[in-house]
């Protein structure tokens, strides 16, 4: 049996979209697919450690970093966030229905061999360094790497 491959571009840093991406990544890995997740632009926040980046930044980059703090636990719903109340409600509903949180989904994905790739161009624009990301990130790459992986993929999604 040839191994199927899936790639996911995680462009959004919204909680709901990140959950959808990890849901598919974890299911794909369970189905024996080789899964690569390419985190770019706002999606980088999902795999940031969440501290304030210590990299050298321009004032604009610094401001962006402060206004858009990284980290899985800080992700908000794309709709109905309601200053955090909506996100809090969604998180408690997910717990009640025994759905894995975003943090748990990330751990599960790693256990299942899902690979995490971070986009270096977005990192440069946002003034982020390798040390700003969780240790689970496998590699720091560009679009050619993504496209080469997507060429082998039967399922390639932009989220």
């Amino acid at each position: 049996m040839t191994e199927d491959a899936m790639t996911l571009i995680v462009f959004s840093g919204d909680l709901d979209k990140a959950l959808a991406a990890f849901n598919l990544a974890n299911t794909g890995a369970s189905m024996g697919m080789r899964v690569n997740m390419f985190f770019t632009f706002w999606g980088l926040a999902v795999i940031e450690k969440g501290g304030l980046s210590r990299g050298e930044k321009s004032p604009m980059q610094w401001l962006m970093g402060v206004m858009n703090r990284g980290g899985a636990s800080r992700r908000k719903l794309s709709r109905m966030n309601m200053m955090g109340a909506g996100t809090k409600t969604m998180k408690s509903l997910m717990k009640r229905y025994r759905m894995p949180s975003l943090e748990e989904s990330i751990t599960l994905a790693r256990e299942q061999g899902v690979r995490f790739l971070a986009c270096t161009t977005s990192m440069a624009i946002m003034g982020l360094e390798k040390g700003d990301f969780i240790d689970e990130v496998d590699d720091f790459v560009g679009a050619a790497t993504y496209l080469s992986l997507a060429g082998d993929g039967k399922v390639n999604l932009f989220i």
Partner: protein
Amino acid sequence: MEADRKIDCVGFYCPMPIVKTAQAMKEMEPGQVLEVLADDEGIRSDMPAWANKTGNEFLGVEEEPGEIRVYVRKGPG
């Protein structure tokens, strides 16, 4: 139906029953049967799809109100 191993996924929604099935099957021998007890309706369609994709054999569903039992036999691997 007789099963070599059973897992309880009641109260879990997609993708957890499938993830747990894949994890359990890793520890089983070819030819052995796994019973998955679930209450998420999606399992009826998801389990045959999973089995088909992973080279395992979907054996069928037994249903009682609020309980769905699905059976899969581990393939030759």
